[in-house]
């Protein structure tokens, strides 16, 4: 007889049937009873506490969960635990049974292959699998072997170097001494192997999601499905009543001054009266298990009244647009201005005026470690949050004010960060965790899913840049005008800093007498934009360098020559009128040109009937990727396509 009732109640109560799994893990037989929906990654991490393997995405897209199942490398987040019954699993945690490091791990150590380290266990597994299959694998086969593993920090170069070094040592082509550190006569300038690499290549280092405390509870967060809505009521009674739920939090539970932000403290710990973006935290549940907490989320009833949403910054700036924050007229979060010289006069005197519009997209940090944390209250009443926060000093300030506690009764510990890039500067979950720990008087753990990280965390500001540059016929820039509008999203986060940086650096490392820059960050109901590696400068300098190339084309000039003419020299005055004693800009350009070999000439010379460039397809380039390195025929799919054009 179909047993539908129990299914409905498992989801509703958060109590799922258990399954007993008997499996050999790292050479040891284990028999454990776990929730039947567990995947192999849950079994290994949550049940066996083997935290070397990670859950970077839960959808088979990142490779951090890779492990061997009966000798084959698989993604354990895609493996229902039932599939491993009677099988043998090999994880990173015990890869070298003699408790040292395998040759692959030593090579990773030597080559500097681990940076944040979060992808590294998976990479070590993929490398191990590739070399086990073919101990003589060439670089193309190695790349394909690692093609299912994402790294966000290293650019893969040193990881690939490490796999090749390991291969050569394993084959005897290179002596094992090559794995040792080079001797140093001065530690400054030395290629010292990373001190944390051994703990990263073995999966031993603990990130926030790898930490447990006795008597720990689990938090899950209810997030807004609407981009803009008034919260009319939140009814948490049914959620609170669910067995296993210890507390349910809303903004009403915040005792102190409820706002935080890197520059402007405009964001509440949980939405207060209004939600401003899809994914904004509305309520939090703390319960005995993650399953029960998730079930409780479904029992929270929120009454929303949807409001018109703003999704385009230029529209949001128009008079009459709905105001998203009471203090931000025309939804403008920050307007930075640079005014140097007289741009209008200079443009009129230019021989050539070139205009163009550039746009960059919102970017996700995509650190492999999703947000996570552990919060607890010490016996002396000090509230402690361990998390990969990029600014614990500032977070402690804000949290103390939010909790209404003296600052030395709030403690922030920065756990090992599995990638930050600016995305972990905003205190988007630590406040809820601290509240949960205070209310329940037990440690509280919270681990984001990848989808939650995407929805809730900051994005790189997209920019729309209207560029006007005036030049003389010989290529000298006489005036630069940049009008930049950026979607700041629902809360300020780092928008003021981004606008500043984009303006100050935007016109580039060039000596320009007349500069006009507007950088306008605007509130909308999109995901908040925040700090992201080279914030503001990435976008504005992209426009400048693309624009210079366009100008070089119009002037029929070599783009290197155009830059050499205009780059700042020692003693130059920046766009903010700062004198720079020493400017190494031309040294860098000359060094890049020397390293690459650069055949000077106009861009895309084919169009002008000029001879092709002579600097292509030389040293320093790789062969194009054609896939199929270890197919037996080893014939790329279109080998006959030898036609190249310069």
């Amino acid at each position, binding site marked *: 007889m179909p047993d539908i009732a129990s*299914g409905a109640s*498992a989801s509703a109560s958060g109590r799922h049937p258990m399954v007993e799994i008997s499996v050999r893990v790292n050479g040891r037989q284990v028999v454990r009873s776990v929730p039947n929906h567990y995947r192999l990654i849950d079994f290994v991490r949550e049940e066996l506490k083997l935290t070397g393997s990670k859950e970077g995405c839960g959808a088979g*897209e990142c490779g951090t969960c890779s492990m061997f199942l009966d000798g084959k490398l698989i*993604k354990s987040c895609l*493996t*229902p635990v039932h599939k491993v019954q009677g099988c043998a699993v090999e994880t990173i945690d015990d890869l070298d049974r003699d408790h040292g490091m395998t040759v692959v791990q030593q090579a990773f150590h030597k080559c500097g292959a681990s940076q944040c380290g979060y992808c590294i266990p998976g990479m070590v597994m993929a490398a191990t699998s590739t070399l086990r299959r073919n101990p003589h694998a060439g670089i193309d086969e190695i790349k394909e072997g690692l*093609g299912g593993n994402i790294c966000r920090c290293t650019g893969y170069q040193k990881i690939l170097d490490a796999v090749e070094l390991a291969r050569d040592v394993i084959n005897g082509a290179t002596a094992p001494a090559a794995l040792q550190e080079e001797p140093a006569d001065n530690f400054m300038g030395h290629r010292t192997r990373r001190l944390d690499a051994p703990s990263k290549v073995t999966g031993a280092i603990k990130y926030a999601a790898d930490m447990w405390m006795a008597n720990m509870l689990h938090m899950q967060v209810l997030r807004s499905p609407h981009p803009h809505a008034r919260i009319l009521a939140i009814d948490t009674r049914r959620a609170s009543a669910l067995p296993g739920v210890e507390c349910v939090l809303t903004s009403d539970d915040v005792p102190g001054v409820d706002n935080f932000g890197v520059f402007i403290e405009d964001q509440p710990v949980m939405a207060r009266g209004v939600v401003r973006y899809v994914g904004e935290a509305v309520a939090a549940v703390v319960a005995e298990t993650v399953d029960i907490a998730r079930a409780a989320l479904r029992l929270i009833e929120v009454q929303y009244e949807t409001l018109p949403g703003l999704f385009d910054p230029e529209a949001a700036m128009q008079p009459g647009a709905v105001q998203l924050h009471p203090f931000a007229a025309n939804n403008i979060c920050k307007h930075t201005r640079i005014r140097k010289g007289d741009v209008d006069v200079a443009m009129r005197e230019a021989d050539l005026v070139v205009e163009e519009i550039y746009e960059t997209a919102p970017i996700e940090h995509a650190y492999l470690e999703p947000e996570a944390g552990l919060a607890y209250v010490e016996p002396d009443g000090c509230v402690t949050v361990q998390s990969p926060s990029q600014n614990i000093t500032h977070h402690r300030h804000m949290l103390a004010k939010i909790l209404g506690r003296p600052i030395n009764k709030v403690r922030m510990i920065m756990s090992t960060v599995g990638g930050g890039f600016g995305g972990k500067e905003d205190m988007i979950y630590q406040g809820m965790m601290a509240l949960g720990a205070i209310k329940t008087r037990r440690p509280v753990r919270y681990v984001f899913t990848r989808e939650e990280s995407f929805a809730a965390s900051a994005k790189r500001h997209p920019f729309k840049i209207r560029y006007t540059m005036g030049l003389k016929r010989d290529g000298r820039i006489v005036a630069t005008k940049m009008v930049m509008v950026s979607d700041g999203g629902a809360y300020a986060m780092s928008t003021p800093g981004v606008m500043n940086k984009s303006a100050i650096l935007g016109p580039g490392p060039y000596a320009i007498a007349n500069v006009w820059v507007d950088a306008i960050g605007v509130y909308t109901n999109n995901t908040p934009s925040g700090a992201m590696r080279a914030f503001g400068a990435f976008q504005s300098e992209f426009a400048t360098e693309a624009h210079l190339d366009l100008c070089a084309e119009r002037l029929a000039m070599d783009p290197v020559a155009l830059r050499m003419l205009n780059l700042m020299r020692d003693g130059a005055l920046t766009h903010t009128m700062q004198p720079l004693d020493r400017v190494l800009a031309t040294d860098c350009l000359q060094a890049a040109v020397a390293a690459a070999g650069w055949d000077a000439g106009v861009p895309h010379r084919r169009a002008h009937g000029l001879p092709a460039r002579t600097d292509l397809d030389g040293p320093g380039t790789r062969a194009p990727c054609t896939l199929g390195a270890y197919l037996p025929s080893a014939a790329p799919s*279109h080998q006959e396509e030898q036609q190249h054009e310069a």
Partner: protein
Amino acid sequence: MLSFDHYATPQTLDAAFDAIGRFAGARLVAGATDLLPWAREGRAGDVHLPAMVDVSRIPELCALSVQGDRIRMGAATPISAFQNDPRLQKLAPVLGRCAVWFADDQIREQATVGGNLVNASPAGDSQPALLALNASVTLARRVASRIESRCMPLSDFIVGPGKTQLAGDEILTTIECDAVPGWGAAFEKVGHRRSLVISTVCLAALIRLDWAQRRIEDCRIAIGAVGPVPERLHDVEMRLRGQPPSAELLREAALMTADRVRSRSRQQYRREVLANFVERALAAALAQSGVALERLPKESVHA
């Protein structure tokens, strides 16, 4: 998150039918590589099923054999077999060429041929290769206590995005396809990067020249990701059969595909790439058969 009341791992086909009969709404699963990513926020969200019936350990579904000029694969054959099994390497190399574009090493060990077909994603990479190999599927059901099978061409099996002819009480047990040793083969795919990526356009092509290498004796072309279902380009194949290969012929074949794109998005892009892929794949397959052709310059395509 995917959750369920029961998870059965039958060791025989009979036990699998027992499980399907016992649990109404049971979901068959082989590799689970499509199911688990689907039951997540942003896609299907939390999904609770009455039961999962895991068919990946049933021996009939794992066997691979060659009978004459047909290859028989169990539905639970992992995609990695396309690259690793010496019989497939020799007799249907287009499968290997397709496999290198299919996800990544790890997922290829877990994803199954049958699972991929039943999932029937319009962007599925294995479908064009199998269609080009005249694949057919065997569906089994139990009536009273007898297991009965029906066979149909793969082109009939997949009827829409995510929709197949698999009935609620049926199990896909085997896939059969042609053995085509010595044919020239090519697989083209484009996505937004070179690994672990969803296809925007994909195509498989097979060519056999006559013994004198003067004419195209037979050819098969199948496309994917440009419409609700993958399909063979029978009209193009007919045009090519019996013809001496030439750059002009390839261009003509490419131009015939102008109206084959039925996706709802990025239509113009797909149309252009499809035409280019037809030409490129045919040229590559011909090159493998010993006939090197230089394609016509692109300007001729667009007036």
